[in-house]
Protein backbone atom coordinates (compact mmCIF):
# COMPACT_ATOMS: atom_id res chain seq x y z
CA UNK A 1 0.00 0.00 0.00
CA UNK A 2 1.18 3.41 -0.95
CA UNK A 3 0.81 6.41 1.29
CA UNK A 4 -0.99 9.35 -0.19
CA UNK A 5 -0.23 12.97 0.45
CA UNK A 6 -2.69 14.37 3.04
CA UNK A 7 -3.91 16.92 0.50
CA UNK A 8 -4.99 14.12 -1.83
CA UNK A 9 -6.69 12.25 0.99
CA UNK A 10 -8.61 15.28 2.19
CA UNK A 11 -9.62 16.25 -1.36
CA UNK A 12 -10.87 12.71 -1.94
CA UNK A 13 -12.86 12.67 1.29
CA UNK A 14 -14.32 16.10 0.52
CA UNK A 15 -15.37 14.83 -2.91
CA UNK A 16 -17.08 11.82 -1.34
CA UNK A 17 -18.85 14.15 1.06
CA UNK A 18 -19.98 16.25 -1.90
CA UNK A 19 -21.32 13.15 -3.68
CA UNK A 20 -23.29 11.91 -0.69
CA UNK A 21 -24.46 15.16 0.90
CA UNK A 22 -27.61 15.49 -1.24
CA UNK A 23 -28.44 11.79 -0.97
CA UNK A 24 -28.04 11.94 2.81
CA UNK A 25 -30.34 14.96 2.89
CA UNK A 26 -33.03 13.01 1.06
CA UNK A 27 -32.69 10.06 3.44
CA UNK A 28 -32.89 12.27 6.54
CA UNK A 29 -36.01 14.09 5.42
CA UNK A 30 -37.67 10.83 4.39
CA UNK A 31 -37.98 9.82 8.05
CA UNK A 32 -38.98 13.25 9.32
CA UNK A 33 -42.56 13.55 10.47
CA UNK A 34 -42.89 17.20 9.41
CA UNK A 35 -44.65 17.54 6.10
CA UNK A 36 -43.21 20.98 5.36
CA UNK A 37 -40.10 22.87 6.36
CA UNK A 38 -36.60 21.92 7.26
CA UNK A 39 -36.85 21.26 10.98
CA UNK A 40 -36.45 17.67 12.04
CA UNK A 41 -39.45 16.88 14.22
CA UNK A 42 -39.50 13.19 14.97
CA UNK A 43 -38.53 9.91 13.42
CA UNK A 44 -41.22 8.12 11.45
CA UNK A 45 -41.72 5.48 8.76
CA UNK A 46 -45.11 6.97 7.98
CA UNK A 47 -44.10 8.22 4.51
CA UNK A 48 -42.79 4.81 3.54
CA UNK A 49 -46.02 3.15 4.61
CA UNK A 50 -47.97 5.67 2.56
CA UNK A 51 -45.97 4.80 -0.55
CA UNK A 52 -47.21 1.25 -0.56
CA UNK A 53 -50.81 2.39 -0.75
CA UNK A 54 -50.08 4.78 -3.63
CA UNK A 55 -51.27 3.03 -6.79
CA UNK A 56 -49.47 5.44 -9.11
CA UNK A 57 -46.12 4.81 -7.41
CA UNK A 58 -46.59 1.05 -7.40
CA UNK A 59 -47.47 1.08 -11.07
CA UNK A 60 -44.48 3.29 -11.90
CA UNK A 61 -42.19 0.92 -9.97
CA UNK A 62 -43.57 -2.03 -11.90
CA UNK A 63 -43.14 -0.19 -15.22
CA UNK A 64 -39.54 0.67 -14.40
CA UNK A 65 -38.73 -2.94 -13.62
CA UNK A 66 -40.63 -4.33 -16.61
CA UNK A 67 -38.89 -1.92 -18.97
CA UNK A 68 -35.44 -2.72 -17.57
CA UNK A 69 -35.94 -6.49 -17.58
CA UNK A 70 -37.52 -6.89 -21.01
CA UNK A 71 -35.08 -4.52 -22.70
CA UNK A 72 -32.07 -6.10 -20.97
CA UNK A 73 -33.00 -9.63 -22.00
CA UNK A 74 -33.65 -8.62 -25.61
CA UNK A 75 -30.57 -6.43 -25.88
CA UNK A 76 -28.34 -9.09 -24.33
CA UNK A 77 -29.48 -11.77 -26.78
CA UNK A 78 -29.29 -9.54 -29.85
CA UNK A 79 -26.05 -7.87 -28.75
CA UNK A 80 -24.28 -11.16 -28.01
CA UNK A 81 -25.19 -12.61 -31.42
CA UNK A 82 -24.08 -9.39 -33.07
CA UNK A 83 -20.77 -9.39 -31.20
CA UNK A 84 -20.02 -12.94 -32.36
CA UNK A 85 -20.94 -11.94 -35.90
CA UNK A 86 -18.58 -8.97 -35.75
CA UNK A 87 -15.62 -10.66 -34.08
CA UNK A 88 -15.56 -14.10 -35.66
CA UNK A 89 -15.93 -13.56 -39.41
CA UNK A 90 -13.58 -12.09 -42.00
CA UNK A 91 -15.46 -8.94 -42.99
CA UNK A 92 -13.43 -6.57 -45.10
CA UNK A 93 -11.76 -3.56 -43.55
CA UNK A 94 -14.31 -1.18 -45.07
CA UNK A 95 -17.41 -3.02 -43.89
CA UNK A 96 -15.90 -3.41 -40.44
CA UNK A 97 -15.39 0.35 -40.18
CA UNK A 98 -18.98 1.03 -41.22
CA UNK A 99 -20.34 -1.47 -38.70
CA UNK A 100 -18.10 -0.01 -36.03
CA UNK A 101 -19.35 3.51 -36.67
CA UNK A 102 -22.99 2.39 -36.43
CA UNK A 103 -22.22 0.54 -33.21
CA UNK A 104 -20.65 3.62 -31.62
CA UNK A 105 -23.47 6.03 -32.48
CA UNK A 106 -25.21 5.72 -29.08
CA UNK A 107 -21.87 6.19 -27.30
CA UNK A 108 -20.88 9.41 -29.05
CA UNK A 109 -24.24 11.13 -29.46
CA UNK A 110 -26.08 12.82 -26.61
CA UNK A 111 -29.06 10.63 -25.70
CA UNK A 112 -31.51 13.45 -26.31
CA UNK A 113 -30.77 13.22 -30.06
CA UNK A 114 -31.65 9.52 -30.12
CA UNK A 115 -34.77 10.38 -28.12
CA UNK A 116 -35.72 13.08 -30.63
CA UNK A 117 -35.12 10.73 -33.56
CA UNK A 118 -37.30 8.06 -31.95
CA UNK A 119 -40.11 10.54 -31.26
CA UNK A 120 -40.16 11.54 -34.91
CA UNK A 121 -39.87 7.96 -36.18
CA UNK A 122 -42.60 6.66 -33.88
CA UNK A 123 -44.70 9.70 -34.72
CA UNK A 124 -44.62 8.72 -38.38
CA UNK A 125 -45.10 5.01 -37.61
CA UNK A 126 -48.29 5.90 -35.74
CA UNK A 127 -49.91 6.46 -39.11
CA UNK A 128 -49.14 2.82 -39.91
CA UNK A 129 -50.15 1.20 -36.63
CA UNK A 130 -51.58 2.38 -33.33
CA UNK A 131 -49.02 0.09 -31.66
CA UNK A 132 -46.59 3.00 -31.87
CA UNK A 133 -48.67 5.40 -29.79
CA UNK A 134 -46.44 6.77 -27.01
CA UNK A 135 -46.21 4.02 -24.41
CA UNK A 136 -44.43 0.94 -23.14
CA UNK A 137 -43.79 -0.60 -26.57
CA UNK A 138 -41.95 2.52 -27.77
CA UNK A 139 -40.01 2.75 -24.52
CA UNK A 140 -38.88 -0.86 -24.73
CA UNK A 141 -37.87 -0.49 -28.39
CA UNK A 142 -35.91 2.66 -27.55
CA UNK A 143 -34.13 1.12 -24.58
CA UNK A 144 -33.20 -2.03 -26.51
CA UNK A 145 -31.69 0.15 -29.23
CA UNK A 146 -29.12 1.93 -27.10
CA UNK A 147 -28.50 -1.11 -24.90
CA UNK A 148 -27.59 -3.28 -27.93
CA UNK A 149 -24.61 -1.05 -28.63
CA UNK A 150 -23.20 -1.27 -25.12
CA UNK A 151 -23.80 -5.03 -24.79
CA UNK A 152 -22.13 -5.66 -28.15
CA UNK A 153 -19.09 -3.56 -27.26
CA UNK A 154 -18.62 -5.35 -23.93
CA UNK A 155 -19.15 -8.86 -25.34
CA UNK A 156 -16.96 -8.18 -28.35
CA UNK A 157 -14.04 -7.04 -26.21
CA UNK A 158 -14.40 -10.27 -24.23
CA UNK A 159 -14.44 -12.28 -27.48
CA UNK A 160 -11.24 -10.58 -28.56
CA UNK A 161 -9.69 -11.23 -25.14
CA UNK A 162 -10.39 -14.98 -25.09
CA UNK A 163 -8.84 -15.44 -28.53
CA UNK A 164 -9.54 -18.29 -30.93
CA UNK A 165 -7.17 -21.06 -29.83
CA UNK A 166 -9.79 -23.05 -27.97
CA UNK A 167 -12.25 -22.73 -30.84
CA UNK A 168 -9.63 -23.90 -33.30
CA UNK A 169 -8.83 -26.87 -31.08
CA UNK A 170 -12.54 -27.74 -30.92
CA UNK A 171 -12.74 -27.56 -34.72
CA UNK A 172 -9.77 -29.89 -35.03
CA UNK A 173 -11.71 -32.33 -32.84
CA UNK A 174 -14.62 -32.17 -35.29
CA UNK A 175 -16.96 -29.94 -33.27
CA UNK A 176 -20.00 -28.87 -35.27
CA UNK A 177 -21.04 -25.25 -35.54
CA UNK A 178 -23.75 -25.70 -32.95
CA UNK A 179 -21.56 -27.70 -30.58
CA UNK A 180 -18.85 -25.08 -30.85
CA UNK A 181 -21.25 -22.25 -30.06
CA UNK A 182 -23.08 -24.04 -27.29
CA UNK A 183 -20.22 -25.81 -25.52
CA UNK A 184 -17.17 -23.70 -26.29
CA UNK A 185 -17.91 -20.08 -27.16
CA UNK A 186 -20.89 -19.37 -24.90
CA UNK A 187 -19.35 -20.83 -21.70
CA UNK A 188 -16.14 -18.89 -22.27
CA UNK A 189 -18.14 -15.80 -23.06
CA UNK A 190 -20.47 -16.00 -20.07
CA UNK A 191 -18.67 -13.44 -17.86
CA UNK A 192 -18.75 -10.97 -20.76
CA UNK A 193 -22.44 -11.63 -21.40
CA UNK A 194 -23.25 -11.17 -17.70
CA UNK A 195 -21.24 -7.94 -17.60
CA UNK A 196 -23.01 -6.69 -20.74
CA UNK A 197 -26.43 -7.58 -19.35
CA UNK A 198 -25.69 -5.80 -16.09
CA UNK A 199 -24.54 -2.72 -17.95
CA UNK A 200 -27.73 -2.78 -20.03
CA UNK A 201 -29.88 -3.15 -16.91
CA UNK A 202 -28.10 -0.24 -15.24
CA UNK A 203 -28.39 1.95 -18.31
CA UNK A 204 -32.11 1.25 -18.46
CA UNK A 205 -32.64 2.11 -14.78
CA UNK A 206 -30.44 5.19 -15.16
CA UNK A 207 -32.16 6.46 -18.28
CA UNK A 208 -34.53 9.35 -18.06
CA UNK A 209 -34.45 11.13 -21.39
CA UNK A 210 -35.40 8.29 -23.75
CA UNK A 211 -38.25 7.22 -21.46
CA UNK A 212 -39.42 10.79 -20.99
CA UNK A 213 -39.67 11.36 -24.74
CA UNK A 214 -41.48 8.10 -25.50
CA UNK A 215 -43.70 7.39 -22.48
CA UNK A 216 -47.48 7.37 -22.58
CA UNK A 217 -50.13 8.01 -19.94
CA UNK A 218 -50.07 4.44 -18.62
CA UNK A 219 -46.35 3.77 -18.79
CA UNK A 220 -44.83 6.21 -16.32
CA UNK A 221 -41.58 5.04 -14.76
CA UNK A 222 -40.30 6.03 -11.33
CA UNK A 223 -37.87 8.71 -12.64
CA UNK A 224 -40.66 10.24 -14.73
CA UNK A 225 -43.01 10.15 -11.75
CA UNK A 226 -40.44 11.82 -9.48
CA UNK A 227 -39.57 14.40 -12.15
CA UNK A 228 -43.23 15.37 -12.44
CA UNK A 229 -43.89 15.26 -8.71
CA UNK A 230 -41.05 17.56 -7.63
CA UNK A 231 -42.32 20.22 -10.03
CA UNK A 232 -45.49 20.35 -7.97
CA UNK A 233 -43.39 20.50 -4.80
CA UNK A 234 -41.02 18.28 -2.91
CA UNK A 235 -42.77 16.08 -0.35
CA UNK A 236 -41.55 13.57 2.24
CA UNK A 237 -43.16 10.79 0.19
CA UNK A 238 -40.84 11.61 -2.69
CA UNK A 239 -37.90 11.51 -0.29
CA UNK A 240 -39.06 8.12 0.95
CA UNK A 241 -39.45 6.82 -2.58
CA UNK A 242 -36.02 8.13 -3.60
CA UNK A 243 -34.41 6.65 -0.50
CA UNK A 244 -35.92 3.27 -1.36
CA UNK A 245 -34.59 3.54 -4.91
CA UNK A 246 -31.12 4.39 -3.56
CA UNK A 247 -31.26 1.45 -1.13
CA UNK A 248 -32.26 -0.93 -3.92
CA UNK A 249 -29.38 0.47 -5.98
CA UNK A 250 -26.98 -0.27 -3.11
CA UNK A 251 -28.25 -3.84 -2.91
CA UNK A 252 -27.88 -4.26 -6.67
CA UNK A 253 -24.34 -2.86 -6.66
CA UNK A 254 -23.18 -5.00 -3.75
CA UNK A 255 -24.92 -8.06 -5.18
CA UNK A 256 -23.33 -7.61 -8.58
CA UNK A 257 -19.94 -7.13 -7.04
CA UNK A 258 -20.26 -10.35 -5.05
CA UNK A 259 -21.35 -12.11 -8.23
CA UNK A 260 -18.48 -10.90 -10.39
CA UNK A 261 -15.71 -10.97 -7.81
CA UNK A 262 -16.02 -14.73 -7.30
CA UNK A 263 -15.03 -15.37 -10.89
Amino acid at each position, binding site marked *: *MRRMHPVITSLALATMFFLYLPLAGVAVFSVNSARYG*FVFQEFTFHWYAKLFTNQVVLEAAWNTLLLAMVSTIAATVIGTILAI*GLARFPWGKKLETV*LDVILHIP*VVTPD*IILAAALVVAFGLLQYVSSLFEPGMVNMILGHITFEISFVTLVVRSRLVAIGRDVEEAA*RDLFASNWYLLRHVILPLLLPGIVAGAMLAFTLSLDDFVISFFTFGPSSQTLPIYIFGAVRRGVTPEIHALSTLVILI*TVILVVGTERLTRKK
Partner: protein
Amino acid sequence: MTEPSPKNIIWYGELTTQGSLMKRGLGFLSPGMVWLLVLLVLPGLVLVAVSLITRGSYGQLLWNFTSENYTRLLGFSVFGWTADYLRILWRSVVVAFFTTLLSVVLAYPLSFFIAARPERTRYFWLTLVIVPFWTNMVIRTYAWFLILAPEMPLAKAAGWLGLVSAGSPLYPSAFAVYLGMISIFLPFVTLPLYASVERLDWSLVEAAQDLYASRIRVFTQAIIPQTMPGLSVGIILTFVPAMGMFVVPDMLGGAKYMLVGNLIQQQFGASRDWPFGAAISMGLMVLTMISLQLYRRKFREVELV
Protein backbone atom coordinates in the same frame (compact mmCIF):
# COMPACT_ATOMS: atom_id res chain seq x y z
CA MET B 1 -4.73 -36.79 -48.42
CA THR B 2 -6.37 -34.77 -51.14
CA GLU B 3 -5.59 -31.12 -51.62
CA PRO B 4 -8.54 -28.88 -50.70
CA SER B 5 -10.09 -27.55 -53.88
CA PRO B 6 -9.15 -23.91 -54.54
CA LYS B 7 -12.58 -22.68 -53.43
CA ASN B 8 -12.17 -24.22 -50.00
CA ILE B 9 -10.53 -22.23 -47.25
CA ILE B 10 -9.46 -23.09 -43.76
CA TRP B 11 -10.82 -20.60 -41.27
CA TYR B 12 -9.52 -21.28 -37.76
CA GLY B 13 -9.57 -25.04 -38.14
CA GLU B 14 -12.78 -25.15 -40.13
CA LEU B 15 -12.71 -26.42 -43.70
CA THR B 16 -15.26 -24.25 -45.43
CA THR B 17 -15.88 -22.04 -48.41
CA GLN B 18 -15.89 -18.27 -48.52
CA GLY B 19 -19.58 -18.37 -49.43
CA SER B 20 -20.83 -20.51 -46.58
CA LEU B 21 -18.67 -18.64 -44.06
CA MET B 22 -20.14 -15.32 -45.18
CA LYS B 23 -23.63 -16.77 -45.10
CA ARG B 24 -23.22 -17.91 -41.52
CA GLY B 25 -21.62 -14.59 -40.59
CA LEU B 26 -24.53 -12.66 -42.02
CA GLY B 27 -26.86 -14.84 -39.98
CA PHE B 28 -25.10 -13.65 -36.82
CA LEU B 29 -24.81 -10.08 -37.97
CA SER B 30 -28.28 -9.43 -39.34
CA PRO B 31 -30.61 -9.41 -36.29
CA GLY B 32 -28.55 -6.78 -34.51
CA MET B 33 -27.61 -4.77 -37.56
CA VAL B 34 -31.15 -4.75 -38.95
CA TRP B 35 -32.34 -3.57 -35.54
CA LEU B 36 -29.79 -0.76 -35.42
CA LEU B 37 -30.49 0.25 -39.01
CA VAL B 38 -34.25 0.37 -38.47
CA LEU B 39 -34.32 1.97 -35.03
CA LEU B 40 -31.15 4.02 -34.98
CA VAL B 41 -29.86 4.92 -38.44
CA LEU B 42 -33.23 5.28 -40.15
CA PRO B 43 -34.76 7.47 -37.39
CA GLY B 44 -31.57 9.55 -37.54
CA LEU B 45 -32.06 10.11 -41.26
CA VAL B 46 -35.74 10.89 -40.71
CA LEU B 47 -34.66 13.45 -38.12
CA VAL B 48 -32.38 15.08 -40.70
CA ALA B 49 -35.27 15.16 -43.20
CA VAL B 50 -37.68 16.62 -40.65
CA SER B 51 -35.18 19.35 -39.81
CA LEU B 52 -35.59 20.53 -43.42
CA ILE B 53 -39.39 20.84 -43.51
CA THR B 54 -41.99 23.06 -41.85
CA ARG B 55 -44.79 22.50 -39.41
CA GLY B 56 -48.43 23.42 -39.66
CA SER B 57 -50.30 25.49 -37.12
CA TYR B 58 -51.32 22.36 -35.14
CA GLY B 59 -47.78 21.05 -35.03
CA GLN B 60 -48.31 18.63 -37.93
CA LEU B 61 -45.47 18.11 -40.39
CA LEU B 62 -45.70 19.80 -43.78
CA TRP B 63 -43.37 18.27 -46.34
CA ASN B 64 -42.17 21.37 -48.16
CA PHE B 65 -38.44 21.68 -47.98
CA THR B 66 -36.81 24.73 -46.47
CA SER B 67 -33.69 25.76 -44.58
CA GLU B 68 -35.79 28.03 -42.37
CA ASN B 69 -35.22 25.97 -39.20
CA TYR B 70 -31.47 26.34 -39.49
CA THR B 71 -31.54 30.07 -40.21
CA ARG B 72 -33.84 30.41 -37.20
CA LEU B 73 -31.32 28.49 -35.06
CA LEU B 74 -28.63 30.92 -36.25
CA GLY B 75 -30.83 33.73 -34.96
CA PHE B 76 -32.46 35.12 -38.10
CA SER B 77 -36.18 35.81 -38.06
CA VAL B 78 -38.62 38.32 -39.49
CA PHE B 79 -37.76 40.56 -36.55
CA GLY B 80 -34.06 40.69 -37.46
CA TRP B 81 -31.14 38.90 -35.85
CA THR B 82 -30.74 37.80 -32.25
CA ALA B 83 -28.01 35.72 -30.65
CA ASP B 84 -30.40 33.96 -28.24
CA TYR B 85 -30.20 30.45 -29.67
CA LEU B 86 -26.50 30.71 -30.45
CA ARG B 87 -25.91 31.85 -26.89
CA ILE B 88 -27.69 28.75 -25.57
CA LEU B 89 -25.64 26.51 -27.86
CA TRP B 90 -22.39 28.17 -26.78
CA ARG B 91 -23.38 27.99 -23.12
CA SER B 92 -23.98 24.24 -23.50
CA VAL B 93 -20.48 23.75 -24.85
CA VAL B 94 -19.00 25.84 -22.03
CA VAL B 95 -20.98 24.03 -19.33
CA ALA B 96 -20.09 20.62 -20.76
CA PHE B 97 -16.44 21.63 -20.99
CA PHE B 98 -16.14 22.93 -17.44
CA THR B 99 -18.21 20.07 -16.04
CA THR B 100 -15.81 17.64 -17.66
CA LEU B 101 -12.73 19.58 -16.55
CA LEU B 102 -13.83 19.96 -12.93
CA SER B 103 -14.94 16.32 -12.79
CA VAL B 104 -11.49 15.26 -13.99
CA VAL B 105 -9.80 17.51 -11.42
CA LEU B 106 -11.84 15.93 -8.63
CA ALA B 107 -11.62 12.40 -10.03
CA TYR B 108 -7.81 12.22 -9.89
CA PRO B 109 -7.41 12.57 -6.10
CA LEU B 110 -10.40 10.29 -5.60
CA SER B 111 -9.00 7.53 -7.85
CA PHE B 112 -5.58 7.75 -6.23
CA PHE B 113 -7.13 7.66 -2.79
CA ILE B 114 -9.16 4.54 -3.62
CA ALA B 115 -6.23 2.82 -5.31
CA ALA B 116 -4.15 3.43 -2.17
CA ARG B 117 -6.64 1.72 0.16
CA PRO B 118 -5.70 -1.74 1.41
CA GLU B 119 -7.35 -4.55 -0.57
CA ARG B 120 -10.00 -5.17 2.10
CA THR B 121 -11.50 -1.67 2.13
CA ARG B 122 -10.86 -0.80 -1.51
CA TYR B 123 -14.08 -2.43 -2.65
CA PHE B 124 -15.99 -0.54 -0.03
CA TRP B 125 -14.75 2.79 -1.37
CA LEU B 126 -15.27 1.71 -4.94
CA THR B 127 -18.85 0.74 -4.11
CA LEU B 128 -19.35 4.22 -2.70
CA VAL B 129 -18.55 5.62 -6.16
CA ILE B 130 -20.63 3.04 -8.05
CA VAL B 131 -23.82 3.64 -6.04
CA PRO B 132 -24.34 7.23 -7.23
CA PHE B 133 -23.28 6.12 -10.73
CA TRP B 134 -26.21 3.68 -10.70
CA THR B 135 -28.72 5.98 -9.02
CA ASN B 136 -31.07 7.72 -11.39
CA MET B 137 -30.04 11.28 -12.14
CA VAL B 138 -33.51 12.69 -11.52
CA ILE B 139 -33.17 11.70 -7.86
CA ARG B 140 -29.61 12.97 -7.60
CA THR B 141 -30.61 16.28 -9.17
CA TYR B 142 -33.67 17.09 -7.09
CA ALA B 143 -31.73 16.06 -3.97
CA TRP B 144 -29.84 19.35 -4.35
CA PHE B 145 -33.12 21.22 -3.73
CA LEU B 146 -32.74 20.33 -0.06
CA ILE B 147 -29.12 21.35 0.27
CA LEU B 148 -29.67 24.63 -1.60
CA ALA B 149 -32.90 25.56 0.21
CA PRO B 150 -32.98 28.97 1.91
CA GLU B 151 -33.23 27.37 5.38
CA MET B 152 -29.99 25.45 4.85
CA PRO B 153 -26.53 26.69 5.92
CA LEU B 154 -25.23 27.06 2.37
CA ALA B 155 -27.90 29.55 1.29
CA LYS B 156 -27.69 31.35 4.63
CA ALA B 157 -23.93 31.77 4.27
CA ALA B 158 -24.41 33.07 0.73
CA GLY B 159 -27.03 35.46 2.08
CA TRP B 160 -24.66 36.84 4.75
CA LEU B 161 -21.98 37.31 2.15
CA GLY B 162 -24.44 39.19 0.02
CA LEU B 163 -24.17 36.75 -2.89
CA VAL B 164 -27.92 36.21 -2.95
CA SER B 165 -30.68 38.12 -1.25
CA ALA B 166 -31.33 36.71 2.22
CA GLY B 167 -34.02 34.05 2.40
CA SER B 168 -33.82 32.96 -1.22
CA PRO B 169 -32.70 29.55 -2.39
CA LEU B 170 -29.47 29.01 -4.31
CA TYR B 171 -31.36 27.58 -7.25
CA PRO B 172 -32.18 28.14 -10.05
CA SER B 173 -28.72 29.42 -10.88
CA ALA B 174 -25.60 28.68 -12.87
CA PHE B 175 -23.93 27.62 -9.62
CA ALA B 176 -26.65 25.04 -8.97
CA VAL B 177 -26.36 23.71 -12.52
CA TYR B 178 -22.62 23.16 -12.09
CA LEU B 179 -23.11 21.50 -8.69
CA GLY B 180 -25.69 19.16 -10.17
CA MET B 181 -23.72 18.40 -13.31
CA ILE B 182 -20.45 17.69 -11.52
CA SER B 183 -22.07 15.49 -8.89
CA ILE B 184 -23.75 13.48 -11.64
CA PHE B 185 -20.73 13.07 -13.90
CA LEU B 186 -17.99 12.66 -11.32
CA PRO B 187 -18.50 8.87 -11.09
CA PHE B 188 -18.48 8.66 -14.91
CA VAL B 189 -14.90 9.96 -14.90
CA THR B 190 -13.77 8.32 -11.67
CA LEU B 191 -14.61 4.72 -12.53
CA PRO B 192 -12.68 4.42 -15.82
CA LEU B 193 -9.89 6.60 -14.45
CA TYR B 194 -9.59 4.39 -11.39
CA ALA B 195 -9.17 1.35 -13.65
CA SER B 196 -6.10 3.04 -15.15
CA VAL B 197 -4.75 4.35 -11.85
CA GLU B 198 -4.94 0.87 -10.34
CA ARG B 199 -2.61 -0.43 -13.06
CA LEU B 200 -0.21 2.50 -12.78
CA ASP B 201 3.47 1.60 -13.03
CA TRP B 202 4.85 3.43 -10.01
CA SER B 203 8.45 2.79 -10.99
CA LEU B 204 8.04 5.41 -13.73
CA VAL B 205 6.77 7.90 -11.17
CA GLU B 206 9.69 7.11 -8.87
CA ALA B 207 12.15 7.41 -11.74
CA ALA B 208 10.79 10.86 -12.50
CA GLN B 209 11.14 11.82 -8.85
CA ASP B 210 14.70 10.49 -8.72
CA LEU B 211 15.51 12.74 -11.64
CA TYR B 212 14.28 15.76 -9.67
CA ALA B 213 11.13 16.31 -11.70
CA SER B 214 8.83 18.81 -10.04
CA ARG B 215 5.47 17.57 -8.75
CA ILE B 216 3.77 19.14 -11.73
CA ARG B 217 6.10 17.44 -14.21
CA VAL B 218 5.68 14.10 -12.45
CA PHE B 219 1.95 14.48 -12.88
CA THR B 220 1.95 15.71 -16.47
CA GLN B 221 4.68 13.44 -17.78
CA ALA B 222 4.61 10.29 -15.68
CA ILE B 223 1.01 10.02 -14.49
CA ILE B 224 -1.22 11.56 -17.16
CA PRO B 225 0.23 9.56 -20.08
CA GLN B 226 -0.16 6.32 -18.13
CA THR B 227 -3.74 7.03 -17.16
CA MET B 228 -4.72 8.36 -20.59
CA PRO B 229 -6.82 5.35 -21.67
CA GLY B 230 -9.12 5.55 -18.65
CA LEU B 231 -9.13 9.32 -18.68
CA SER B 232 -10.25 9.45 -22.30
CA VAL B 233 -13.11 7.04 -21.73
CA GLY B 234 -14.16 9.10 -18.71
CA ILE B 235 -13.96 12.37 -20.62
CA ILE B 236 -16.09 11.07 -23.49
CA LEU B 237 -18.60 9.42 -21.14
CA THR B 238 -18.97 12.80 -19.43
CA PHE B 239 -18.72 15.34 -22.21
CA VAL B 240 -21.16 13.70 -24.63
CA PRO B 241 -24.11 13.33 -22.25
CA ALA B 242 -23.28 16.67 -20.62
CA MET B 243 -23.71 18.40 -23.99
CA GLY B 244 -27.30 17.15 -24.31
CA MET B 245 -28.19 17.25 -20.61
CA PHE B 246 -31.67 18.46 -19.90
CA VAL B 247 -32.67 17.18 -16.45
CA VAL B 248 -30.14 19.26 -14.49
CA PRO B 249 -30.64 22.62 -16.26
CA ASP B 250 -34.38 22.05 -16.22
CA MET B 251 -34.51 21.47 -12.46
CA LEU B 252 -31.60 23.57 -11.22
CA GLY B 253 -31.13 26.16 -13.96
CA GLY B 254 -34.61 27.37 -14.70
CA ALA B 255 -35.51 29.54 -17.64
CA LYS B 256 -32.54 31.85 -17.09
CA TYR B 257 -29.90 29.20 -17.53
CA MET B 258 -31.26 27.12 -20.38
CA LEU B 259 -29.08 24.64 -22.22
CA VAL B 260 -29.57 23.14 -25.66
CA GLY B 261 -31.17 20.04 -24.10
CA ASN B 262 -33.99 22.17 -22.69
CA LEU B 263 -34.42 23.90 -26.02
CA ILE B 264 -34.83 20.55 -27.81
CA GLN B 265 -37.20 19.23 -25.17
CA GLN B 266 -39.35 22.36 -25.49
CA GLN B 267 -39.80 21.79 -29.21
CA PHE B 268 -40.87 18.19 -28.69
CA GLY B 269 -42.96 19.05 -25.64
CA ALA B 270 -44.87 22.28 -25.15
CA SER B 271 -44.08 24.01 -28.46
CA ARG B 272 -44.66 20.92 -30.60
CA ASP B 273 -42.30 22.18 -33.29
CA TRP B 274 -40.58 18.99 -34.42
CA PRO B 275 -38.79 20.50 -37.43
CA PHE B 276 -37.11 23.16 -35.30
CA GLY B 277 -36.37 20.55 -32.58
CA ALA B 278 -34.78 18.37 -35.25
CA ALA B 279 -32.66 21.28 -36.49
CA ILE B 280 -31.43 22.04 -32.96
CA SER B 281 -30.60 18.33 -32.52
CA MET B 282 -28.50 18.54 -35.67
CA GLY B 283 -26.74 21.59 -34.27
CA LEU B 284 -26.02 19.72 -31.05
CA MET B 285 -24.78 16.73 -33.03
CA VAL B 286 -22.38 18.86 -35.06
CA LEU B 287 -21.03 20.62 -31.96
CA THR B 288 -20.47 17.29 -30.20
CA MET B 289 -18.70 15.83 -33.22
CA ILE B 290 -16.45 18.89 -33.60
CA SER B 291 -15.52 18.79 -29.91
CA LEU B 292 -14.69 15.07 -30.02
CA GLN B 293 -12.67 15.61 -33.18
CA LEU B 294 -10.69 18.44 -31.57
CA TYR B 295 -10.04 16.23 -28.56
CA ARG B 296 -8.94 13.35 -30.74
CA ARG B 297 -6.59 15.53 -32.70
CA LYS B 298 -4.96 16.70 -29.50
CA PHE B 299 -4.59 13.24 -28.03
CA ARG B 300 -3.99 10.91 -30.95
CA GLU B 301 -4.09 7.62 -29.13
CA VAL B 302 -7.70 8.06 -28.02
CA GLU B 303 -10.00 5.12 -28.57
CA LEU B 304 -13.68 5.55 -28.09
CA VAL B 305 -14.45 2.60 -25.87
